[in-house]
């Protein structure tokens, strides 16, 4: 049940490895050194460190093991995808407490990255809503953990990038929703300062907020963009509209490298900005275009061509102020990587996962095509993030240097201590953990 092949992250960085699949995660993970789900992480966290390392793919393990319609608590095998959960439970009035910007992720991946969504300022990360995990440890034992039972393993696994154990089952609380529709407000923001004020103000009124920035504009319009805010619509607001699922299209082939360049990216950004010609709009939208605008085109990652791409995502603490955000954007513009996509979000307090990404401040995520300059670009951005007291998001990262990571991650020694306890022989590892955590290659 294995084949030598190349495994890819979402940024299409590929590594040779052996991926194994089975409906039975228990037997599947017995000899594996890493688990992976839908491979929506961008960099090398779901890739093997060595070609002969076995990576357990959880996708066929997608059974729901229990759902309590009284409390909303759902327990399922780790390979169950958010797309399936939404398809089944949206029409019944339930939605996951947290969703990232794609529904093509598994529960295992959501826990391992401790994902956040548009409601981070209110609801925190996914880990805050997890009740229990069933984990296969590196030495083969299987344990159940929760905030009360083996809390170090539990919190270490939340945002632990699969390095403490293979997640077999996840138990978490879904949230009730009044209707399967979103009431959304979008506003045009003319500069980064206006944007940050807008986000802070919207956070008080809306449970979900995020923004899209034109990160190729300069000067006084640096950081202009569109702020989106939303909440689940009340039944009255929907006017009784029935729920329908969106159709998906797929980018059937890879575009050549040259299609996405500085000029096309700039044109795209300007077009998007000005297509929002009214200053502010309110309307009823379906959850899919609101939460997952990019999922409308499957395999959109092929748009970057064979060179592939990466996403740089960092969070800058509130204490560093708007000046740090402006400086970040200025540096980004100067470094000149064309990006059609730059997403900004204000985060609430740090979560309880030992290595959970968000902290109170501003998160910025930009896509970048891979070029010979990429290492230099990531290094320059990381230097700024370190100086501001921020950090990067591991699930997006493929290029950060270990010394930079250590400098921005004072929690790392604590995590490594927990890893030593639960994986004493250091069996579990990924290409990323070898690059950043000092795991044996």
């Amino acid at each position, binding site marked *: *049940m*294995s*084949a030598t092949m190349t495994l890819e992250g979402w940024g299409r960085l590929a590594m040779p490895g052996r991926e*194994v*699949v*089975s*409906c*039975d995660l228990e037997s599947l993970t017995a000899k594996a050194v890493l688990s992976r789900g839908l491979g929506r992480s961008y960099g090398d966290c779901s890739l093997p460190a060595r070609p002969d390392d076995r990576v357990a793919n959880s996708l*066929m393990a997608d*059974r*729901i*093991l*229990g*759902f309590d*319609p009284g409390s909303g608590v*759902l327990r399922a*095998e780790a390979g169950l995808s958010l797309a399936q959960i939404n398809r*089944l439970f949206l029409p019944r009035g339930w939605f996951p407490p947290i969703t990232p910007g794609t529904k093509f992720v598994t529960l295992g991946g959501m826990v391992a990255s401790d994902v956040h969504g548009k409601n981070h300022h209110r609801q925190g990360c996914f880990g805050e809503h997890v009740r229990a995990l069933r984990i296969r440890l590196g030495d083969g034992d299987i344990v159940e953990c929760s905030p009360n039972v083996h809390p170090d393993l539990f919190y270490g696994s939340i945002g632990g990038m699969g390095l403490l154990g293979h997640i077999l089952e996840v138990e978490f609380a879904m949230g009730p929703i009044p209707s399967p529709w979103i009431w959304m407000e979008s506003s045009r923001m003319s500069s980064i300062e206006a944007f940050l004020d807008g986000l802070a103000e919207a956070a008080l009124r809306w449970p979900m907020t995020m923004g899209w920035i034109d990160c190729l504009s300069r000067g006084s319009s640096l950081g202009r963009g569109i702020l989106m805010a939303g909440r689940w619509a009340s039944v009255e607001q929907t006017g009784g509209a029935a729920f329908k699922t969106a159709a998906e299209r797929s980018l059937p082939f890879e575009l050549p490298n040259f299609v996405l360049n500085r000029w096309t990216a700039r044109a795209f950004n300007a077009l998007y900005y000005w297509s929002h010609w009214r200053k502010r709009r309110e309307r009823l939208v379906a959850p899919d275009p609101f939460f997952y605008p990019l999922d409308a085109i499957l395999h959109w990652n092929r748009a970057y061509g064979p060179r592939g791409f990466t996403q740089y995502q960092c969070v800058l603490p509130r204490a560093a102020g708007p000046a740090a955000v402006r400086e970040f954007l200025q540096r980004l513009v100067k470094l000149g990587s064309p990006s059609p996509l730059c997403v900004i979000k204000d985060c609430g307090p740090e979560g309880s996962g030992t290595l959970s990404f968000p902290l109170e401040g501003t998160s910025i995520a930009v896509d970048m095509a891979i070029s010979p300059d990429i290492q230099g670009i990531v290094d320059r951005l990381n230097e700024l993030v370190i100086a501001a007291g921020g950090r990067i998001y591991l699930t997006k990262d493929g290029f950060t240097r270990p010394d930079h990571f250590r400098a921005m991650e004072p929690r790392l020694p604590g995590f490594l201590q927990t890893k030593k306890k639960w994986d004493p022989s250091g069996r579990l590892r990924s290409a990323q953990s070898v690059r950043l955590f000092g795991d044996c290659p």
Partner: protein
Amino acid sequence: MKAVILGGTSGMGREIARRLAERGDLLFLLGPRKKNLERSAADLVARHPDKVDVAFAPCDLLRPEGFSEALDAADAALGGFDTVIVTAALFATQEALEADVDLTQRLVTANFANTVLFCEHARKRLLARGGGRLCVFSSVAGDRGRKPVAIYGASKAGLSAYLEALDHKFHAHGLSVLCVKPGFVRTEMTAALQPPPFAGTPDRVATQVIRAMDRGKPLVYSPPVWAWVMRVIRWLPRFVMRRIGF
């Protein structure tokens, strides 16, 4: 629909069971491993719009003496089933089968002799209550003797012939028999094989099979492109089949 599914714990059987549960049909699961049945039953309960119970009983294709008891349990739980679906089967590569006679015996016995026995039990019960549906998974591998699937294909060829005859013989008595011939579908069974360009997915197969069952069709190739592929293969002259590796 009140359906018994042998093999509903994984792959295409799992997807069929899920779709039936989601539209409100009543189900009973059969399979060799109790823990696995338990987990699949829980999954179906969570998916059913009315959250009805899904019961199960052990049934191993290598133990035909247990078939009758298993179907009794299904009858009792469902209050008389009207549909029986069999997706369970064994698979092994031709090399593995050539290297291991015991494996060959098990596979041929399970996929042909015992599947026929199971269907005989099922169709007698269905006919006794005036008819019903019998949906059984064979394979495109049974359509022509081919080098890479000589033994597995033969077990499925025998099964296909039996299912066709069953349809001819009992159609007028109210028994609707559906023989499903999947092409390459990405499931655990084929996880170790290199997928061809038009490999199918279990959810697509499930949709197609349920539609075919609802319409009372006798034969379905899934994904549909395999109907054309096999038409060509069946027409290829012997001397060509000898030379090619397909």
